[in-house]
């Protein structure tokens, strides 16, 4: 048995070597897998499926990308897996959510940091928005700030977990407005946090723009402000927090994109970095994303590297006191 195993090991090594020798010219030779660290049907999963659907085309990668969901603990489970257990052979990609994974790595208790991954490209930017129920007495951001200042710690505000974009936005609001809110993290992502707002379980909520846009269209919530640098094309009438006098920048914007684990051959990274952004810009992809109410924002590898570094610095400062 031992010789058999040794033989198998040698054969495997031989395989890897031949693959390396040809400079990955033939990559990809089989379907690629992309890990999404949130459940099927969530915003990240939904968008990941759309932006990768043209991957099998000849002008893209020429091989389909299959989505593998590894949900749990606000994404930690999936990213831990990608950093520690996934094979860095170019056939395992992962979807990232910034600021989530960076904030989690700063907070500690996980096996990854920005150094564990190599970004490929960014496909979307989903800002956090402040929502209140349709019958709420709050009509502007100022109303909310006034209430929170008058009643420290009484303004219950739902969001999808701790150390995710929503939580960062809440922390920034508290800092900018010099006030104290009661941030209520929910389990089960944006949907559960939104349900709490619609049902009146909480007084306000911070949620994804894409989900809030849908709920507002259905007439269930009012969107009071966007936590971004400029107004969003989906919501031209909603002011940014800065316009309303609260100094909150775009640190909480949920950037979604593709990355690979560290150790993936440079040749493959280069090939992916060259092909994937053009794949995202495909008109079919853009059409579906718009129909689904998901804002797109394509960035190439160098831009994402810069964005990660900038975000890490802001978050370290923001989370230092916690």
């Amino acid at each position, binding site marked *: 048995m031992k010789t058999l195993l040794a033989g198998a090991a040698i054969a495997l090594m031989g395989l890897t070597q031949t693959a390396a020798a040809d400079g990955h010219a033939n990559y990809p030779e089989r379907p690629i897998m992309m890990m999404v660290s949130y459940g099927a049907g969530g915003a990240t999963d939904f968008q990941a499926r759309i932006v990768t659907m043209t991957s099998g085309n000849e002008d893209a990668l020429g091989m389909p990308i299959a989505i593998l969901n590894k949900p749990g603990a606000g994404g930690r489970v999936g990213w*831990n897996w990608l950093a520690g257990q996934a094979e860095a052979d170019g056939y395992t990609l992962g979807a990232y959510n910034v600021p989530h994974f960076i904030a989690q790595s700063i907070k500690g208790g996980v096996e990854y940091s920005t150094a564990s991954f190599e970004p490929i490209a960014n496909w979307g930017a989903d800002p956090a928005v402040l929502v209140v129920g349709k019958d709420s007495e709050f009509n502007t951001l100022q109303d909310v700030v006034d209430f929170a200042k008058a009643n420290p710690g009484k303004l219950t505000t739902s969001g999808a977990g701790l150390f995710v974009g929503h939580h960062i936005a809440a922390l920034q609001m508290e800092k900018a407005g010099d006030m104290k809110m009661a941030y209520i993290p929910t389990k089960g992502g944006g949907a559960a946090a*939104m349900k709490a707002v619609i049902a009146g379980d909480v007084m306000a909520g911070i949620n994804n723009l894409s989900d809030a846009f849908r709920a507002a269209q*259905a007439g269930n919530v009012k969107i009071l402000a966007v936590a971004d640098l400029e107004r969003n094309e989906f919501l031209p009438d909603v002011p940014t927090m800065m316009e309303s006098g609260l100094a909150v920048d775009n640190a909480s914007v949920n950037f979604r994109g593709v990355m690979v684990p560290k150790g993936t051959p440079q040749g493959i990274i280069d090939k992916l970095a060259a092909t994937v952004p053009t794949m995202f810009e495909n008109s079919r992809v853009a059409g579906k994303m718009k129909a689904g109410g998901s804002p797109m924002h394509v960035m190439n590898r160098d831009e994402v590297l810069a964005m990660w570094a900038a975000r890490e610095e802001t978050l370290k400062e923001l989370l230092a006191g916690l």
Partner: protein
Amino acid sequence: MRLIRQLLQAAQFRRFLLKIPGAPANIATTLDGHAMALNGEGAKALQLSFLSSAVGGVFGVLLLIFLTPVLAQWALAFGPSHLFWLAILGVTVIGSLDSASVVKGLLSGCIGLWLATIGFDDIMGAQRFIFHPSLGGGINIIAALIGLFAIPQVITMFAKGHKNDGTEAIQVQKHPIKSAVSELLRYKRAMGIGTITGSIIGLIPGVGGQIAGLVAYDQSKKFSPDKDKFGTGHPEGLIAAESANNAMVGPSLVPLLTLSIPGSPTAAVLLGGLLIHGIFPGTDLFDNHPDVAWTFINSMLIGQILMCIFGLYVAGMAARVAQVPQSMMAAIVLGLAVFGSYSVQSSMGDVYVMASLGVMMYFLERFGFSAAPLVLGLILGPIAESNFIQGSMIATATDGLAPYFFTGPLNLFLIAVVVLSVLYSGYMELRARRYTSKEEIMG
């Protein structure tokens, strides 16, 4: 669009004949379905289950059609405190599920609740009870189900050795569909309880249909004159569980279609499908896209009926699965269990978890513990925990813990049901002890 329906129904065959639930919602059905298959009534069990699913399912879809706007408000009435009490109610239901001993039933439930907390905690991100790296993601519910139900069956087949094999072959009795229909009419009470319980539970976002079958099973057991027959292949339990399982499908889409909140994982996938076509479910879905909304609902209705006809047609054939020799069955189920648990998330860790839980369950079953309450605990654990944490956070920010959890008509109603359930379990326990001590003396 008929995906949900088909997924639920396809799971049917595998589960009774082998006592392996195909989907989490099916646990309750296996309790009596498997016993019926062992009695040679596999065909009857399948027929009854398809018929009662169809009745429950059609009722659920009709509710969806006529009462959507009203039901949407109802679904929202359940806040964190109510969902917490509802999960606790589920835990007390555990007690009476296990007929051997109420304490062991509750203890199995506790083991399940504990297993559910393994892995990274969802809100804080803290590591809890991670003894092995493959437990980091927590225990996958599908892998756990396969392990807890299939592996003990496999080991039981091993334990019989190869000599007894031939004599154990089960004769499958033929069963005319007409008599299945009349049987169904005879158990109107179970049918009604199942359908109504399923519809109500299906509405509540977050709880989903996973416990609908179990709660309905338990309720019909409490109301039935033939309590003792439950679990031994009694059609009533099967009918209640199965009608509830399907009655919940229609109402579970109410929060999605009216409020755009997916109430269950299946509904979340469905939401994705609608979004890709540029359709936003919400209050105006019926105004803006009436064609889509109605096609969808009608296809659910037609799907319900077609699946019933198809199911009845193949029931006779499928029941023969039980006739495969046990030696081969054990090996087949083992292989399927390994491949099945691996393919959930392409993870070896899930296979290890499946096997460990399965072997543990075999030995626990020998000592009077049972898998159903354990699984219920595993499913309800996260619901109870997240609503407890969320509720207590809201409560501390507003009017305090006690008023938040203990006031309001809905809270009080749920607490009353929980208390009654506990008292009932206690009474059962006392009766059981009297019974056993008598037996001990005689023995």
